[in-house]
């Protein structure tokens, strides 16, 4: 009985550890970017402009390559605090821009790891993701 109880505790503990690696802490939702990027902080206004396609080039002339992660709670923070639009409104906004030829929507990833890979491998890349998963990308703070 005691052995069974110990095994039960071990299984529960292992499950918690495994599951927790898939949960993003809302506190760590933020911006990761290409490590060669010269900026370490951007304003909230410019963050919004980037993800609405209104700011497309960094000051040094490097084109901006934005991306975001569609995983909770990152995506809720992205819609509410960064672009200040609900998902349907954000999709509708980009429908107009993409279909009229005015731009390309930020790339969407379903994991923070993929977003970090994108940020590391693309000059000028900036992603709204989980800053606890960097994979070589750098954190850029939103002021």
């Amino acid at each position, binding site marked *: 009985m005691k052995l069974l109880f110990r095994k039960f505790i071990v299984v529960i503990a292992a499950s918690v550890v495994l599951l927790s690696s898939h949960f993003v802490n809302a506190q760590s939702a933020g911006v990761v970017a290409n490590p060669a990027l010269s900026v370490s902080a951007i304003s909230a206004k410019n963050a919004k402009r980037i993800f609405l396609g209104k700011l497309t080039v960094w000051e040094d002339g490097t*084109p901006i390559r934005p991306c975001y992660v569609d995983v909770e709670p990152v995506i809720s923070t992205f819609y509410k605090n960064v672009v200040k639009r609900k998902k349907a409104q954000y999709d509708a906004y980009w*429908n107009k821009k*993409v279909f009229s*030829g005015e731009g*390309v929507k930020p790339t969407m990833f379903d994991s923070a790891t993929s977003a970090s890979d994108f940020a590391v491998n693309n000059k000028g890349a900036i992603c709204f993701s989980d800053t606890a998963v960097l994979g070589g990308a750098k954190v850029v703070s939103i002021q």
Partner: protein
Amino acid sequence: MHRILLAIAMVLPLSAQAVPLDKFDINGYFSFEYEKNVGGDEEGDLNGSLDADLVDLVINFRPTDKLRIATDFTWEHGAASEDGRGNVAVEYAFAEYTLSNLVKVRAGKQFTHFGIYNEIHTAKPATLTVKEPLSTNKNNKLGSDIRFYPRWGNGLAVTGNSDWNDRDFDYIVQLTNGEDEDEEINPFEEDDNTHKAVTARFRINITDDLRLGASTYLDRLDFESGEKADLTSYGVQAEWTSYDIVSIEFEYVVGEVDYDSGTTVERDAYTIMFSRAFAGWITPYFRYEYLDPNDDIDDDDANLMILGVNLLVDTNMYLKFEIDRFDSEINNDDLAGADYTEFKASLSIGF
């Protein structure tokens, strides 16, 4: 030495370098429509027609960080070229090079960037209503001889955006061949006169919710009859986008066609639309359109009232239902006093 190099070159395989897929973005949209006259004079669609309206592929290719090739290919109304049915077309195909946020240069076939609706008129998932406004965008269907501006232009453009006093703005200036009234000349390949058409638009966000804009189109027309004319159009626009209260879109266009033979046709039109989203997916809308095709002719006006609802039934999938009420005066060239009502419905999907 030359023979050795030649031998090496002949042995090396010629290969077509595959382009990485991450440099392509493929999007598109689909539209299926129905419309029927449900009352009034016998105008519009009397039979009730199902229309395989369109499917478009929007492809962006970025060969370098600063270069983008933007294209939109369309297949409309069930295109079947063997039977001469439907339409296959390039809505736009241009190269864009980014010099800075403020300066991007384009070359190729483009939409005429005038007002609110022209560049999104085919992108049905991007518009609330089944069709774009007729009064300002297709005034030749409501009594005018000539549109305020053509749908497309082939040529060059400079565009960009920035901010002034923390207010975002954007602009575009296009230089194109202009419209050809001679049907044998393709304006996307050849100009029918020495004049180039100019389009210009400036838009600024006064607040986060309110954007104002102004547009102009200037062109020189050569008709098959030998007549020539200067086409001038000006427009102003206002868009109030509020997700919690009513959204409003307003556009006013005024212009003239000044014929060398001495006649001048002055015309003006406006459209205003109110909409409000409920529960994130139900958006009722009301639009009123008005056109005076010729200020010098009495009783030739036309107007259109639209009451409808747009339902977001799945991600980027919209159902639209509306009642369109057309009213015209006796001297209107197209409707000649006809008053009628049409029911319209559509399925629009973006992907």
